């Protein structure tokens, strides 16, 4: 039998391409930075990148089942507002506060999943509606920006690792990959989620637990979005019910997923690819800064890169021989 690695490369092609593109962009960024890549610059850049990366991981879980979650940004905002109120005080109160924030994230995910699966509504409409509800709850918690967060927790998550110059946020991201993503990816339920996204009919015919797989994907998506909200609180030391912020992160998470080689049709790609997609998306913005371009160009530049990535993804359509397949 021939060797395994060509097949492994093929299976993980999207993720590897995202990694490669990120490394190239980051190398350009690091070598051209006016002050060089010192610990403070790296930490600030990492915190921004990791925040989007966590939201992108949340988005990936739903996209893999061939759904889409337009409420991730709002779940993050809700978690941010909640955390700014309850993740303070004694270590015990802080710990309970963190658990409560994560619990709310799980609840939001469960509501999305239950409506999509048992209500048989389309994910796009469902999550627009639930997103508005979550934002309403956030607004009720924080009419005006404010609040606080436990300083030692915030410092631990957003500073540097003890005894080194490595940003702590990267350790948080690694922990999420190890504790949430990899177990999901290698469990039977995670496999089922891929199967559902790739071909729901074939999955049903194979006796795969379709509903449970989708539900777990939405549940974990909500959990990760609330982790992002918590992390945002640690960066800003406050909570803000900002609709603009929620919507921006939702849309950027979809962009990161696409750049990360995850198929919007479902069934293909990985949260690790989406992480590199998110880091890449952030680096694009920072590249303009190091080359001294007007920040006004940033949305345009990010849009061009995204459009180019989507075009690469659509190259397969050139090979379609039955035109009906284009519309299937």
């Amino acid at each position, binding site marked *: 039998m021939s060797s395994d690695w060509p097949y492994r490369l093929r*299976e993980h092609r999207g993720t590897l391409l995202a990694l490669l593109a990120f490394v190239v962009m980051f190398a350009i960024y690091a070598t051209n930075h006016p002050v060089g890549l010192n610990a403070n610059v790296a930490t600030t850049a990492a915190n921004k990148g990791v925040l989007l990366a966590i939201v992108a991981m949340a988005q990936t879980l739903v996209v893999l089942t061939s759904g889409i979650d337009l409420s991730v940004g709002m779940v993050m905002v809700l978690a941010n507002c909640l955390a700014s109120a309850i993740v303070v005080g004694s270590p015990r109160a802080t710990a309970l506060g963190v658990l409560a924030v994560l619990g709310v994230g799980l609840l939001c995910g469960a509501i999305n999943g239950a409506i999509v699966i048992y209500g048989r509504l389309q994910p796009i409409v469902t999550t627009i509606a639930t997103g508005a509800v979550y934002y309403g709850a956030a607004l009720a918690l924080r009419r005006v920006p404010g609040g606080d967060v436990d300083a030692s927790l915030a410092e631990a998550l957003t500073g540097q690792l003890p005894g080194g110059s490595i940003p702590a946020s990267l350790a948080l991201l690694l922990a999420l990959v190890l504790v949430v993503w990899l177990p999901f990816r290698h469990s039977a339920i995670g*496999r089922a989620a891929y199967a559902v996204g*790739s*071909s729901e009919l074939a999955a049903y*015919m*194979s006796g795969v637990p379709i509903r449970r797989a989708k539900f777990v994907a939405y549940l974990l998506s909500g959990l990760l979005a609330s982790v992002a909200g918590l992390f945002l609180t640690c960066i800003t030391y406050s909570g803000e019910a900002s609709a603009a912020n929620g919507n921006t992160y939702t849309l950027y998470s979809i962009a990161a997923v696409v750049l990360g080689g995850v198929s919007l049709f479902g069934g293909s790609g990985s949260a690790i690819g989406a992480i590199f997609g998110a880091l890449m998306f952030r680096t694009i913005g920072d590249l303009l800064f190091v080359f001294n371009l007007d920040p006004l160009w940033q949305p345009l530049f990010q849009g061009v890169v995204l459009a180019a990535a989507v075009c690469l993804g659509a190259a397969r359509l050139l090979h379609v021989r039955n*035109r009906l397949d284009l519309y299937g």
Partner: protein
Amino acid sequence: MSLFVMEGVAKRYGGVRALEGADLALQAGRIHAVLGENGAGKSTLIKIMAGVVQPDAGRLLLDGQPVSFPSPAAAHAAGIACIFQELSLIPDLPVADNIAISNPPRRFGLIDRRAQRRMAEDALARAGADDIHPLALVKDLSLSRRQMVEIAKALARRPRILILDEATSALTAADVMKIYSVLKRLRGEGLALVYISHRMHEIAELADECTVFRNGRSVAHYPAGTKSDGEVVELMIGRDYDAVFPALAARPDGAETPRLELRQLGWGDRVVDISLHLHAGEVIGLGGLDGQGQRELLLALFGVLRGTTGELLIDGRPVTIVGPAAAKRSDIGMALIPEDRKTEGLMLAMSVRDNLSFAALGRLATAGIVDAAAEADAVARIVRLLAIRCDGTDLPASSLSGGNQQKLVIGKWLMMAPRILLLNDPTRGIDVGTKQEIYVLLRQLAEAGTAIVFYSTDYDELVGCCDRVLVMYDGRIRRELVGGEITEHALVSSALNIGADADGAAGAVRP
């Protein structure tokens, strides 16, 4: 005692009877062939065994105990594995993941990839497909290889009963040979096998016993080899269907230039070397089993397929048709009534009027503005002509019955007065009364000079409606039947590629 028994099983879909009083008994260590025409109820039977659909009546016995399979997972658990015509593989996952999909080996709660790899290699070897790499993605494999993975996947479940529904129709000759020996070995291991195939030589090669289905009933059960091919075909056709067809007009002589001519049209290996002439006023039927390239041939004519080879001539003039919009231009004037009226034929949520006028909007508009009065006239004319029964042309198309929806699809294209009309199984799933109206309409159109290509899975229709019938098999025209030669017996036996064919292809394995 029989391993698995189905008694008096019945199933209806809406008003259509798919199965009624069907019986089947399977023995361990035997290969049981199930035969029948298109739509005889074989697929429904299998879906019931596999837990995909639930029977309305009758009972299932496994080892003499009554059982029911509310889901595919329940049938798997009882040891029934089914290899479907439509593939049940997940395209984006590797072969090994697919083979282990319904019950992956686990260690500490996570999938044990090493055990899964061993399981996949073992199953591929048992299926005679050990040249397929377990890490290859299913979407990168050819159709024949995918079907082998499907078989390996079924075997990995260690089933007691294995159902193969047309499992060889997508296979290359080399893979078919491997499957024969695999199936014989499994029979030796004591499995009960159900084998559904339209290929008589495969049944002669493999089956121990046979059950014939017709119109949803099991009509005969006999040990393999005790009936001739001719007798089997008689059993499959039966004598209980009689439709009224309009009289055929005298065939126009073929002296003038054909309206449509094909020279060695091809598209990959799905449509091979098709040459034909079609004259004004002629109705050509396409016969054969489902999926022998008829649908692709019609799509190729309509310009939907890319990369076709060969020549297409309209009125003796070579043309290239690049899509439906080009096909319907007035110098070609071609219309296709598609297979699936709900997705390809109609916009169900839009009104009857909008649906009818879509294809002809260009003719009803001046400077891009639709002339509402002309549109209303044209729509009223078509509704009258086809006797479409609706409570008003402003109602959505979805409010019409199936038969009237089909008339709507046909009417839509009649609005542009086509010169060449292609029909893809237009009477499937509609009532007998509407069917007869469609037969009459086809004949009227032909007499008015339209050239018609008519694909049907119903042999009676081909006999009753067509001047000539081209029987297809494996993408090629196997046989041309003209006038009095078009009989059900000739159609069925040439569709199955058996009998004293002129080309002597009886019993041949596909090339």
